C-alpha cells in the first residue's frame, strides 16, 4: 500500500443531494453546458485531486434506486460521461478522467475504443467506471432484452438476486474483452518504415478472438494501444458479486463503508472476494466513497445538510457514509479509514460547486498538513499517480 492516500471526486449533476440544484451557487440551468463541467474539472485539478469520475446511465435518474418516477423537483438528464470527459481532456493536464460507461447494453468494441481514445487525448489520464445496468427502464431503451424489476426486499443476504448475477458475469466478460482490445496493438506496432513502405508491423497487431457465454468479439481494435497500456478500470461495489467483478477485472474498487458494513468489514469482504476469484498480480485498490457536506465560511456542514433536507422534505440517505462537518473532522474520518488500509477516498460533494470548493480549499490542505495526502503535484499518467505499474506487459507480445 502506498504511503499517501489518494483522493478523487465523484461528479454528478449539481451534486449528490437531490436538492443541491436549488442552492444559490448551483447553476442549475448550466448543468448541460461545457463551461459548467470545465469549471468543476479545473477546480478539482487545482486542488490536486488524483481523479474525477462522472456518473452516467442509460436512463433518467430516479429518487429510489429501484423505481422509475416522474418527479420534477430533482435533477433529471445527463450528458454522455465519456464525451464529457473527452471535452475535459484538453482543458486539464494532471487530473485523471474516469467516466462511467455502461456495459450491459453496449458494445464492448465501442467501449474499448472510446476509453482508449480518451487515454490518447488526455495523454494517459483515462480511467473507466464500469457500470452494470439492472434497471428495466434501461433495457426498454435499447429494446433487445428484458430485465425484470427488482425491489429492495429482493436483496437479502450479501449476494444479488440470480438474474443480476448473470449480468455481473457478463460484465466480467466485457471487461476482459475491453482489456484484450487495448492490448490488441503492441506498443511498437506502428513502424512507418519508408524503405519497405510498411506503415505497420502486422505481426504486432492481434485478433482477440474472445468467445464467451454471452458474445463473441474478434478484434483487433481500430485504436492503437492507449498510452497507459491499460487505462485504469474502476467499479462501484456494495455486495458480493460486484466485489468479485471488481476483483476479477478492475484496478480499483469504490466501496461504501457504513452502508455495506463497518469499514473494516468492507475491506475484509473485498479481500475475500479477491481470494475467491483467485486474483493475482497487483492488489485491488480499495477506495471509500464519502458524501460530504463541509463547513463553508458562512454555514456549518450540519446546517447546510439540515437546510437541504428541509428543502427536499426528507432526511438524506445514501448508499455510503454521509459526513457533515469541518474539514478537520472529515480528515479525522478519512485518516481513520486510511489507517485501516483504504488506499483512497472518493468524495461525493453534496453540492457540487460548494463542496468541491471546500474540498479543494479546506480539506485537501488539512490532509496535506497531516501528511496524509501527497504534498506536491505530479504530472504523468493516471496509473503513475495511483502508484500502479506504469509499464504494463502486453498479453499478446512475444515473450
Amino acid at each position, binding site marked *: 500500500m502506498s504511503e499517501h492516500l489518494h483522493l478523487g471526486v465523484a461528479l454528478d449533476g449539481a451534486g449528490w443531494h437531490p436538492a443541491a440544484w436549488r442552492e444559490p451557487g448551483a447553476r442549475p440551468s448550466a448543468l448541460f453546458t461545457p463551461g459548467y463541467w470545465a469549471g468543476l474539472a479545473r477546480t478539482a485539478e487545482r486542488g490536486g485531486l488524483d481523479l474525477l469520475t462522472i456518473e452516467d446511465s442509460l436512463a433518467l435518474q430516479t429518487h429510489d434506486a429501484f423505481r422509475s418516477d416522474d418527479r420534477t423537483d430533482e435533477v433529471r438528464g445527463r450528458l454522455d460521461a465519456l464525451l464529457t470527459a*473527452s471535452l475535459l481532456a*484538453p482543458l486539464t493536464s494532471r487530473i485523471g478522467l474516469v467516466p462511467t460507461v455502461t456495459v450491459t447494453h453496449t458494445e464492448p468494441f465501442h467501449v474499448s475504443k472510446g476509453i482508449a481514445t480518451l487515454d490518447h487525448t488526455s495523454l494517459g489520464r483515462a480511467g473507466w467506471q464500469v457500470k452494470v445496468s439492472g434497471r428495466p427502464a434501461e433495457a426498454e431503451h435499447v429494446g433487445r432484452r428484458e430485465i425484470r424489476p427488482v425491489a429492495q426486499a429482493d436483496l437479502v443476504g450479501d449476494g444479488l438476486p440470480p438474474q443480476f448475477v448473470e449480468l455481473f458475469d457478463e460484465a466480467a466478460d466485457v471487461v476482459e474483452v475491453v482489456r484484450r482490445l487495448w492490448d490488441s496493438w503492441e506498443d511498437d506496432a506502428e513502424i512507418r518504415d519508408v524503405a519497405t513502405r510498411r506503415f505497420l508491423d502486422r505481426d504486432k*497487431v492481434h485478433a482477440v478472438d474472445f468467445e464467451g457465454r454471452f458474445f463473441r468479439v474478434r478484434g483487433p481494435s481500430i485504436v492503437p494501444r492507449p498510452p497507459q497500456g491499460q487505462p485504469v478500470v474502476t467499479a462501484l461495489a456494495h455486495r458480493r458479486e460486484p466485489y468479485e467483478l471488481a476483483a476479477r477485472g478492475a484496478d480499483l474498487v469504490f466501496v461504501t463503508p457504513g452502508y455495506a458494513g463497518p469499514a473494516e468489514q468492507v475491506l475484509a469482504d473485498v479481500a475475500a472476494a479477491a481470494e475467491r476469484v483467485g486474483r493475482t498480480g497487483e492488489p485491488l485498490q480499495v477506495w471509500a466513497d464519502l458524501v460530504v457536506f463541509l463547513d463553508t465560511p458562512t454555514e456549518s456542514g450540519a446546517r447546510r445538510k439540515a437546510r437541504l433536507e428541509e428543502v427536499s422534505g426528507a432526511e438524506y440517505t445514501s448508499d455510503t457514509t454521509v459526513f457533515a462537518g469541518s474539514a478537520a473532522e472529515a480528515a479525522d474520518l478519512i485518516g481513520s479509514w486510511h489507517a485501516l488500509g483504504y488506499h483512497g477516498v472518493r468524495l461525493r460533494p453534496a453540492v457540487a460547486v460548494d463542496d468541491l470548493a471546500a474540498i479543494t480549499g479546506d480539506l485537501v490542505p488539512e490532509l496535506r498538513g497531516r501528511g496524509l495526502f501527497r504534498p506536491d503535484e505530479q504530472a504523468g499518467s493516471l496509473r503513475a499517480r495511483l502508484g500502479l505499474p506504469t509499464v504494463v506487459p502486453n498479453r499478446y507480445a512475444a515473450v
Partner: protein
Amino acid sequence: MSRKQVILGAYLGGVNHHTAWWHPEAGSQIDFSSFEHTARTAERGRFDFFFLAEGLALRERDGRVFDQDIVGRPDTLPVLASLAAVTTHLGLAGTINATFNEPYELARQLASLDHLSGGRAAWNVVTSFDAFTGQNFRRGGFLDRSQRYERAAEMIDAVRTLWDSWDADDLAADAAAGRFLARPDAGAFDVKGNQFAIRGRFTVPRSPQGRPVILQAGVSPEGRDFAASRSDAIFSPYGSLPEAAEFYRDVKARAVTFGRSPDDIKILPSASFVLGDTEAEAQELYREVRNQQVTGKTALILLEQIWNRDLSGYDPEGPLPDVDPLPDAPPFIQGRALVQQDRVGTVARWREIAEAKKLNLRELVLDQFERGPFVGTPSQVAEKIDSFVQADGADGVIIGSHLVPTGLDEFVDRVVPLLQERGSLRSEYTGTTLRDNLGLPPLPANPGKAVS
C-alpha cells in the same frame, strides 16, 4: 441574387492510400495534437465544419491486416468532443454507422456532443451490411444488405424522435419554485418499427441545435431520395461539371418533392488539393504525390479489390492481369466499402480503357482511382472552387490534404483569403451553431408544443 457562400468542410486524411505517411513532415494519425492542429487551422480559415470518417474493422488482405497504408484511428465522437474544447465555431461532423449502434445510445452521444460544443454537432450516417466488420460486435453482422436503407431510415427517424422528445422549455431549472422539469414526462418516447422497438424517456435535454446536422452519401436513385428526404447535406461524388450540376439539380428537385426547400439540403463533394506557385509547378507536384500514393504494390491491392483474387504475381508496369475476377469467391480484401459492385463488367471496361489509352496496370489505376483534386496556383484553385459552386455544381467542398496534420495550412493561408476577397467565404463567423454556419433554417425550440 446575392453571391452563394462556399461551404467549406475539412477532412483529416486517414485510412487509405492517399494519406502520405511516408512524407518527411507527416505527423501522427492518432495523437490529439494532429486533430487539434487541423481543426484549429480550419477554424482559422472560417471553415463550416471538420469531418471525421470511421472504420470499425482494420482492413485485411487475404486474412492479414493491411500494412502499406495508414492503419488505425481514434474513436470518432470522443475526438470531436475533445475538439469542442479547443474550437469555438467550427462544426464537428462524425461518421457513425447505423448498423453497429443503437438509437438510444447514439442519439444521446450526438445530443451530448451538441451540448458540449454549443451546437456544432453533425452526424454522417452510413450503414453497413458487412459480416466481416460484424465480427467485432456482440450482435454481429445482423443486417442483410436489402435492409440497409430500412435500417438507416428507422435509425434516423428514431434518433430524431429522441432528440425531439424534450422541448427546450422542459428544462425549467426554477430553484425558487422547486421545479427542475416543467413537465413530469419530459423526454418520453415510443418507437416501433421493423428494426427497433424502444420506449421510455430520453436523458438529454434539447440540444442547442435542436437536432444535430445530418449528412449522408447517396448516388443511386434510392440513395438520392433517402438523402433528399432526411438529410441536411449530401456528399456528392461529382467534382466537376456537367455531371455535378445534374446531380445537384436532381437532388434539390427531389428535396422539393418531399416538401422541403432546395436550400434545406446542401450538396458537398470532397476533394484534395495541390498548390504551386505556377500551374506547371502544381501539376508537377501533383504527379509526384500520385506516384508516391500509387506504388506498384498499392496499384495491385487496389485492383485486387475488384478482381477479388491474389494479383501479387503481376507486374505493375505490365498489362492488366489476364485472369478473370472471382465475383463469387470469399472477399480477398476485407473491411472497406466496395468501389464497384459489378466486378466482371468493371474489368471488361478497364481492359478497353487500358487498350485505348495504352495504359499499363499502374497507369490504369492512376486513371481510374482519380479523385479529381483541385490542382493549380492559389488563385486558380480559388477560382475553380468558387466558379464550381456559383455554377451550381455544389454548395461547397470538403477539402483535405494528403499530408497530415499540416497539409491544410497552405490552403488556409493562400486560398481562403482569395475566396474571402471574392465575397464567397465569410471573414468572420456570424452565428454560433453549425446550422448557422450552413445557413440551414432554425428548428423549433419546442417541437412537442409545435405539434400539439
